[in-house]
């Protein structure tokens, strides 16, 4: 008992000195669990996040756009891999994580449960969804767990083109015909609020935040990151000449930041619980891909076995 308390104290003082915790270091069981959950969710989000955009690869309006979108979706697969590997350093197996995603035990970002119904959605996703992800991920580059922090650094480098290609799509639509501009506005209308929800529940409803901040797993609270995103994004919408769908959005001179309206938390919790427009579809698609890929995994193993016999 004493020993445990001492270890905890020592661990916390390492954190307070801003030291990184590495895979083989001693860590409290709760710290390990928190990270496995958070990194796992993050990995699942990258993987499920390929689906809404994958929907438009074959229908991209030009070869240039198609190559870019394909490349972006490929990057997201890579991000999923970096993150699964980071989680595996904590002692959880990849298969377990994938089972938990498929059974609904593990969550992923609720944003990916919304449908992508027009080409402009590819613009809005790159601009807003990747934009929000970047705000979150830049902050996580300084997270206390070394393998997680290093994957974030790598991911952030790769993300920057994601947001720019999205903004470029929006810009082109906004400079186009009135129908095209209306498409861009419609996409903004549908993606704005779900993007704000990406930062999670508000601080007052987020009981785990305090511990995560003390462990420096998180470096900023959900509301702080959300505010940062709003402040960055409003001027970008002005460049596009489209309107953010929030009547309460207003610059607050005193605070030096934007005030904005209340998120529809009922919608947020309902989508998290599985009742969003595409939750079932997304999990179904993941399971189907996994099951239909079984023969490929079997064949790879059989091939490896054959080859090792040949060498021996």
């Amino acid at each position: 008992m004493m020993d445990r308390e001492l270890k905890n104290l020592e661990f916390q003082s390492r954190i307070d000195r801003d030291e990184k915790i590495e895979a083989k270091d001693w860590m409290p069981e709760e710290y390990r669990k928190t990270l496995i959950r958070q990194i796992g969710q993050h990995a699942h989000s990258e993987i499920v996040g390929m689906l809404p955009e994958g929907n438009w690869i074959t229908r991209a309006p030009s070869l240039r756009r198609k190559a870019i979108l394909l490349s972006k979706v490929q990057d997201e697969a890579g991000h999923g891999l970096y993150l699964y590997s980071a989680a595996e350093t904590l002692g959880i197996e990849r298969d377990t994580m994938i089972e938990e995603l498929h059974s609904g035990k593990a969550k992923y970002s609720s944003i990916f449960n919304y449908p992508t119904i027009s080409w402009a959605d590819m613009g809005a996703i790159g601009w807003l969804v990747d934009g929000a992800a970047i705000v979150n991920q830049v902050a996580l580059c300084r997270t206390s767990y070394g393998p997680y922090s290093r994957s974030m650094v790598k991911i952030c480098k790769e993300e920057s083109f994601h947001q720019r290609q999205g903004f470029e799509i929006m810009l082109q639509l906004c400079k186009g015909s009135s129908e095209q501009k209306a498409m861009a506005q419609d996409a903004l209308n549908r993606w704005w609020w779900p993007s704000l929800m990406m930062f999670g529940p508000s601080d007052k409803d987020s009981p785990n935040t305090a511990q995560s901040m003390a462990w420096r797993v998180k470096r900023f609270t959900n509301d702080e990151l959300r505010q940062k995103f709003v402040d960055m994004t409003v001027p970008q919408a002005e460049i596009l000449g489209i309107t953010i769908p929030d009547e309460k959005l207003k610059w607050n001179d005193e605070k030096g930041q934007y005030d904005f309206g209340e998120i529809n938390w009922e919608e947020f919790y309902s989508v998290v619980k599985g009742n969003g427009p595409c939750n079932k579809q997304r999990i179904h698609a993941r399971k189907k891909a996994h099951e239909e890929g079984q023969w490929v995994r079997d064949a790879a193993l059989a091939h490896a076995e054959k080859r090792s016999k040949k060498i021996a």
Partner: protein
Amino acid sequence: MKNWPLYEVFIRSKNGLDHKHVGSLHASDPQMAIENARDVYSRRMEGVSIWVVESIHITASDPKETSAFFEPAEDKVYRHPTFYNLPDELEHM
């Protein structure tokens, strides 16, 4: 020595950074490899953590195939942020 396997040595120079390959050495077992790596490769506090792995366990890309092997990434300039021409007044992107 003849029957001692070769080990590749990786050192984490500072807390929070990746392990980097620094060289190799022969040793009778992994423990000896770690201790010798400490003595050979970190005499001046070059590291806070050492990994060793038997060289035979490393599979490397074929140097003769380098250009063909890495060719797929060559023509994909759009993977870089500078490929996109965006207005100068755009900030934080």
